[in-house]
């Protein structure tokens, strides 16, 4: 069985971002970029499934500008067998990504698609669900445990939901999105990084896949949250009630 893992190149989680002066977005030039942490977890899960013998190949996929190749190389160094880079500069929204991934799934025919639950730059939490919808495949999102049963072609996924843990049984092929507690991603070792340089990365464009990248969404403005105002020390309960009623309008 083939596993396809979708990974995204995002601003590194340790970087302190700031908004561009023209408020069109977040400053991403001269800023460290790396693989989305949830995508790392997704890739790690795919690699573990492969190492347990339940999958034959792990294909890492990324959509974005040329520099995505670096992220894919990291994925290859962690242990992915092949990588596919769909090149597109410009903003990409989850639905476009989902459509591109659907086209790739139709071509590659994997038995399982694993993604991170969300990207840390936009926190959309939509791509996995959208792919499942487009492919009409079952989905197990926020997975904190994945157990594959090859013979019966079933995946048992424990999901982290607001009320606790929910266990789902999904018929394969399925889409799984990973949550934080699923696993601890491995380090890419130096020898593997060296070997990854020679692993193949296939280059495609959205046109090759007959996908039109357009969006109905447009980011109008990005602002920093307002600066926290200083607190006010009040002298009596009456004053508090008065302020809550007349200034904050909460009662």
């Amino acid at each position, binding site marked *: 069985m083939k596993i396809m893992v979708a990974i995204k190149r995002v601003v590194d989680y*340790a970087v302190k971002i700031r908004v561009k002066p023209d408020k069109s977005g977040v400053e991403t030039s001269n800023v*460290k970029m790396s693989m989305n942490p949830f995508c790392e977890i997704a890739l790690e899960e795919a690699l573990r499934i492969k190492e347990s013998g339940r999958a034959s190949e792990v294909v890492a996929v990324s959509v974005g500008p040329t520099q995505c190749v670096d992220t894919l190389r990291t994925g290859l160094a962690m242990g992915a067998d092949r990588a596919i880079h769909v090149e597109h500069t410009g903003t990409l929204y989850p639905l476009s990504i989902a459509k591109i991934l659907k086209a790739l799934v139709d071509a590659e025919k994997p038995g399982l698609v694993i993604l991170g639950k969300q990207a840390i730059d936009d926190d959309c939490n939509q791509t996995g669900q959208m792919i499942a919808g487009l492919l009409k495949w079952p989905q197990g999102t926020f997975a904190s445990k994945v157990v594959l049963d090859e013979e019966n072609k079933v995946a048992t996924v424990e999901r982290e939901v607001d009320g606790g843990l929910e266990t789902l049984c999904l018929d394969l092929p399925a889409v799984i999105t990973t949550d934080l507690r699923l*696993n601890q991603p491995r380090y890419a070792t*130096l020898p593997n990084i060296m070997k990854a340089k020679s692993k193949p990365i296939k280059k495609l464009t959205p046109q090759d896949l007959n996908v039109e990248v357009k969006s109905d969404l447009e980011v109008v403005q990005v602002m920093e949250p307002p600066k926290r105002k200083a607190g006010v020390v009040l002298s009596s309960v009456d004053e508090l009630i008065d302020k809550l009623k007349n200034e904050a309008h909460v009662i």
Partner: protein
Amino acid sequence: MLRLISSSSKSKPYSSLSYSISIHSPSNNNNSDNNPKFFSSGFSINSAITAPLSQNRNGFPKFPAKIADFDQYGSRFRRVQDLVGGTRNFSSESSLCRESINYDVVIVGAGPAGLSAAIKLKQTCKENDVDLSVCVVEKGAEVGAHVLSGNVFEPRALDELIPKWKEEEAPIHVPVSSDKFWLLSKTRAFSLPSPFNNKGNYVISLSQLVRWLGHKAEELGVEIYPGFAASEILYDTSDKVIGIATNDMGVAKDGSKKDNFQPGVELKGKVTLFAEGCRGSLSEKIISKFNLREKGQGQHQTYALGIKEVWEVSEDKHEAGSVLHTIGWPLNHKTYGGSFLYHMKDRQVAIGFVVALNYHNPFLNPYEEFQKFKHHPAIKPLLEGGTALEYGARTLNEGGYQSIPYPVFPGGAIIGCSAGFLNVPKIKGSHTAMKSGMLAAESVFRTLHEGSPLEAFWENLRNSWIWKELYNARNYRPAFEYGLYPGLALSGLEHYIMRGKSPWTLKHGKPDHEATDEAQMCKPIDYPKPDGIVSFDMPTSLYRSNTNHDHDQPAHLRLTDPKIPELVNLPIYAGPESRYCPARVYEYTSDESGQLKLQINAQNCLHCKACDIKDPKQNIKWTVPEGGGGPGYTVM
């Protein structure tokens, strides 16, 4: 010790015995580079107070052990080691299964010196139609992440290395437009004649330049591996350096292996170049092992701590290329140091403060001096209305000509600031670091290609412009041993009259760590509270350095004797490390009994090495943490 304890409960008796041998460092490699968990860290001190002592089934005490009993366990290990005999290369169990990769040249550190050496090597190979495999390891998460410098760049070395740097889009855009030098008092600024000649120089971000150099190196075929920390020097049986080994990754705080444990990798090179920057951890080991200071110019190295911020200021206040240096306030006349303020492009301004680490008052807090300085009426208006973007700190060499060590040792050489080629009166070290890398590359090529001795590097250094430059600059910094005004006077004499031809060479004063006076002889300094607009508290600043380390790893700051902070540093010197560290790694906090104990917040570390330099008893040893950790400088 710690790793032994936690793993022996899982492993068979025999393997736990062999484990204990391999943990303990071999006796000939004193201060062995990968001497892990044998030393206690702040973590163990804290938990030692609360956790009870217990034994595992082999009779060895379980972690955490009480500090007072530390020596007792140490001797137990030595007995075990004597039984079976320590071997040279086993400094961790994982070394038994470490992969080994061979290169012609291994360079530690992807900074200006390391990358220039790599580039020059590949260029020389191309000219001679041969090839050499060159590998550069870098502990930062990416190339440039740990690079911090003023920086007014003299392109002299770059012109020699990559003459077409402008066409190749090097991030060098802003020529120096003005050069000011002020003597500050508390409220005023007195303009002095500028001792610098910055014509032809540029205001740059060295971090950006190094990134660009990294791309150039990769284009030429150099293999650069960021995120890998060289933690151990590899020797062969004749004590020749044959390469380095990287850190084990995925080791938990108590020394046990985590799920994602990866043993380090050995990178073996026919020649190894150390380009770790000022006070490089492995370079210092090499220098002491091969007595390179005595074989070189002879004097010890002296240092300064530079703390820097990059601000974005309002358009009307920004003047690209403007260069300002100040001396005087807030430092007193006995403390050498001053500030710099360089206007880069895009409304960005680099502002920083440098304090020589041979300061006397243990109550001095370089970070707070910097924050105080920003409130000076001549400086504050520039920053008001601006945003602080990045923060960082790094030590720099001030020893100059008198402190240059002999840079060649069996198996390699030390280049860049790890040796120490910074020109103090010019306050520039990037160009000499790059040139030293290039000279080393030439010698290395001849060694590998023709078999000529690597010692030729020393001769090439002495015949190069680095030597002339440092020789002419040698008497400026030592003059300040006599105080600010005598120093200025002597510097004036040196600059305008003697012009470097003085028949004397002044000596340095005491080594920095010995220069601290006892706390009882000095007055505590009262620093003003930060206002949050122009000056900030430490956590806010630290946040801007993007520094991060995986919290679950052994503390990389090792105390050779864990009792010394409470016995010496605190009572005699009032805990200076809690003041000079620009990242608040060291804090004295009270435990339940009200006693002050040293707490080491290793996660905050900026890799500046100030503690390694300034600790009065030289008890703090900075070792390299897991690769990829540390600051994330982008425009520094």
